């Protein structure tokens, strides 16, 4: 492995400032890594000239002593983020040649802080999927057990795979029901979904507006803090963005968790959860206890409804959000004799099976005669789920759960959509409640696949979430590198 790839985001940032190497050298090393790991299929679009120009500009800033927080650090961007003059497809055929004339707020924040863009990362089509298999250009491969062709998880599968395989120093992701945390768990990296409203949604291809939230996928908790520092912020262009200052998360890394109360929800230990995960879940509880936290059993009684509620609300919003891909103004169009026929053929060919399934579910649950029984009821239950968390956060500071019921599975193995949806069973409740959650790797299962543990905090308590996650990370000492990583 190139020595340069050993640096994580934080240490690379320090090394760059100390001029141990240049951003150009670092970025070059990452392009070599991208080439070496190309079989994983993480990248949809590489923009080497653009990246090199960004790196050169960063080196200038470093030399001038005007470096910004992410100066010269090469990162990857999930293809859900619109990037100016760079193809943005949401991994869908319907947007296969779409090139935005604008930059999403979150990515603009990153470039404004000096980050260097390596390229666009694959994901499930319109972020709908848990295995990265719904991507129009084919699935991404998990760098762990590379010969077994394991799923990187989804939807931010390209981001997780790239960070794990050392072909990006860090990456952006989006999380609607677990799309950052689940692939982070599968690929043995850290994935943070902030509080709903923390990061602007402006310029991110919308899947489910009331749930979508951008966040980082990184190698460490510190790196997640560093990334989120830049990504987050109030944006008047997004009416749901929170007008709240976020404190510098780097100040919270080593605050410790002495006296903090950690809740263990009894509803999250159910049948179907892998024994290795249960083992590491218990280990994690002990590690936190050893670090000075108090462990309390808690109950989130409406958890069992979270998945059904999610699969009503998210498709309902998606069915409406995806109506704009109609072949009229941009994207793919199939010519036809009438307008209705043009819609049918364009959308029929342009969307993949999973996206079509969710559009149909969403259209159905919003239809007159079904609205009250499905959508309205789901909204009511969503409120109850939120109240469950509100009640629990009166007793405890953080909640600890497994990130996923199983570790990664072989690509092509899960054909049944319902089985696939169960992947998100531990991540969906916090999404519905708009709460911040982080998944971090704590160990490997018997077959050598990483296991992720999730911490959930109260709204806008990203600082505390970072402190707690860092404490767990220290105890877990996860420093395995996948066999599919760049060498």
């Amino acid at each position: 492995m190139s020595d340069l790839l050993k640096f994580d985001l934080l240490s690379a940032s320090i090394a760059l400032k100390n001029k141990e190497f240049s951003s150009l050298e670092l970025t070059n090393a990452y392009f070599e890594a991208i080439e070496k790991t190309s079989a994983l299929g993480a990248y949809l679009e590489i923009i080497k000239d653009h990246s090199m120009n960004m790196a050169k500009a960063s080196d200038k800033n470093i030399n001038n002593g005007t470096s910004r927080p992410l100066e010269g650090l090469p990162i990857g961007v999930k293809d859900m983020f619109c990037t100016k003059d760079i193809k943005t497809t949401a991994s869908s055929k319907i947007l296969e040649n779409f090139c935005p004339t604008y930059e999403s707020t979150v990515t603009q924040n990153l470039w404004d802080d000096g980050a260097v863009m390596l390229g666009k990362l694959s994901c499930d089509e319109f972020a709908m999927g848990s295995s990265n298999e719904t991507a129009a250009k084919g699935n991404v491969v998990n760098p762990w057990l590379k010969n077994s062709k394991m799923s990187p998880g989804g939807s931010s599968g390209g981001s997780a795979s790239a960070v794990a395989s050392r072909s990006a120093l860090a990456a952006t992701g989006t999380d609607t029901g677990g799309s950052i945390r689940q692939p982070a768990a599968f690929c043995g990296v850290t994935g943070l979904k902030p509080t709903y409203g923390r990061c602007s949604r402006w310029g991110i291809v919308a899947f489910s507006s009331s749930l979508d939230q951008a966040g980082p996928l990184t190698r460490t908790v510190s790196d997640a803090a560093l990334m989120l520092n830049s990504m987050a912020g109030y944006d008047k262009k997004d009416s749901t963005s929170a007008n709240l200052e976020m404190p510098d998360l780097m100040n919270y890394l080593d605050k410790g968790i002495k006296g903090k109360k950690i809740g263990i929800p009894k509803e999250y230990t159910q049948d179907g959860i892998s024994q290795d995960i249960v083992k590491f879940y218990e280990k994690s509880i002990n590690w936190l206890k050893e670090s000075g936290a108090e462990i309390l059993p808690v109950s989130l009684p409406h958890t069992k409804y979270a998945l059904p509620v999610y699969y009503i609300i998210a498709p309902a919003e998606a069915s409406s959000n995806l109506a704009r891909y109609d072949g009229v103004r941009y994207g793919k169009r199939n010519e036809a004799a009438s307008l209705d026929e043009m819609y049918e053929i364009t959308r029929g060919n342009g969307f993949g099976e999973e996206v079509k399934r969710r559009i149909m579910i969403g259209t159905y649950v919003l239809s007159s005669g079904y609205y009250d029984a499905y959508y309205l009821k789901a909204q009511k239950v969503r409120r109850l789920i939120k109240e469950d968390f509100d009640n629990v956060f009166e007793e405890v500071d953080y909640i600890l759960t497994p990130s996923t019921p199983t570790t990664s599975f072989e690509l092509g193995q899960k054909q049944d959509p319902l089985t696939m949806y169960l992947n998100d069973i531990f991540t969906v409740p916090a999404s519905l409640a708009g709460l911040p959650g982080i998944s971090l790797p704590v160990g490997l299962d018997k077959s050598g696949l990483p296991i992720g543990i999730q911490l959930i905090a109260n709204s806008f308590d990203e600082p505390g979430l970072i402190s707690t996650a860092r404490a767990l990370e220290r105890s877990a000492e996860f420093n395995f590198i996948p066999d599919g990583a760049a060498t």
Partner: protein
Amino acid sequence: MSETGILKPGHINGETGTWEMVIGLEIHAQISSKSKLFSGASASFGAEANSNVSLVDAAMPGMLPVINEFCIEQAVKTGLALNAKINNVSVFDRKNYFYADLPQGYQISQFTKPIVGEGEIIIDLDNGKQTTIGIERLHLEQDAGKSLHDQHPSKSFIDLNRTGVALMEIVSKPDIRSPQEAGAYVKKIRSILRYVGACDGNMEEGSLRADCNVSVRKSGEEFGTRCEIKNLNSIRFIIQAIQSEAERQVDILESGGKINQETRLFDTSTGETRSMRSKEDAHDYRYFPDPDLLPLEFSDSWVQEIKKTLPELPDSLKKRLVNDFEITPYDASILVEEKDYVDFYQKAAKGQDGKLTANWMITELFGALKKENLTLSNSPISPENLGKLVSLISKGTISGKIAKDVFAEMMTSKNSPSDIVKDKGLEQVSDDTEILKLIDKVISENKDKVNDYLGGKDKLFGFFVGQVMKLSQGKANPGIVNNLLKEKLK
């Protein structure tokens, strides 16, 4: 059957009896805002196709709506002017349907929780009576774009300039009972909108359009099945469309048929309505709250602040004009129809005879402006000069007849009436000796007629008056001429 044979408006005589119309209106009023409801693009009319289109309007991926606060204020102002309940919490919903000129695939509107709830307005009818029409609600929504089907033999073109322009939909209760009432209702709403400045009310440019719901019933019966006539853009068409639609429904019902609930279009060339789509073909709009927008919330105190900015509204102004200027309620109702009118009138009538000023403004000035194709805003006669003219008449400086000539001169020269009177020597002659000189001259030149008059031909008196006036070139004070002539011809 009407016993007199003359039917009241809104009633139709059929074979089986008299039918009554039941009408409800949905008025779409474009808010006078520089930018659109959820984007910064210009909302101006008449720009080159697709030149006023933002990324949000074109529904590019990842674009989000942000509410234009000015539009909220206008909706609240209008709600207050409609004596309506202001809802401190309202919600924007998505109305989902596919059409080429609807880029998002949904229109952002307000479905279950509109910004303004129930209210009422008073309308003036032609017979001088008034009636109250209930307002069901007012909500904010986006306009759609425009499909152009006549630009190419096989293709349709889309212009997105209108896409996202802010509209207020004002829904009446089914309280309207005749096409004339519907016309008066639209006029009143338009007048209120112009007073508060929320909409320019320009129907030709489409800033104000109405959908009319029409049904018929026998007096005292339940409401019948209604049809909706879409997108009428003049008061004349509204009146025609309702009348023709009601007649169509009566014909169907009387021949034993049933009314299908449907949406209809008014064909201005035939003066009839035709079916657009039936209820069965109606879209399922799959309304749900727009997750990109938070519920719209504001405080009572904010509403009170808005209330303070409201101008005096037509109903209250009308009362005040009758009181302060002693004019008839009928004249007052004409003067308050438009804010310009009442502003002009109040300037002109200041310190003058209010009734005389109203007469001159309504009859002479409005008549002359109409003839010249002008409006009050570009009237050659300023309110001050109209007031001066009225003053010259009241003081007896000029006669009413001379005043008409002065008025005509004012229309062309824009000079002040006193200057015109001075320049042309038009002051009224009220001096007895001057007038007696003229009378003597007329008597001496018409001895035979004087004899006839004294012999009993009383009608000749008018002739003598006319002759004296003619001799004075119209300047003699007619009252004095009358009195002195009577004395002389005793």
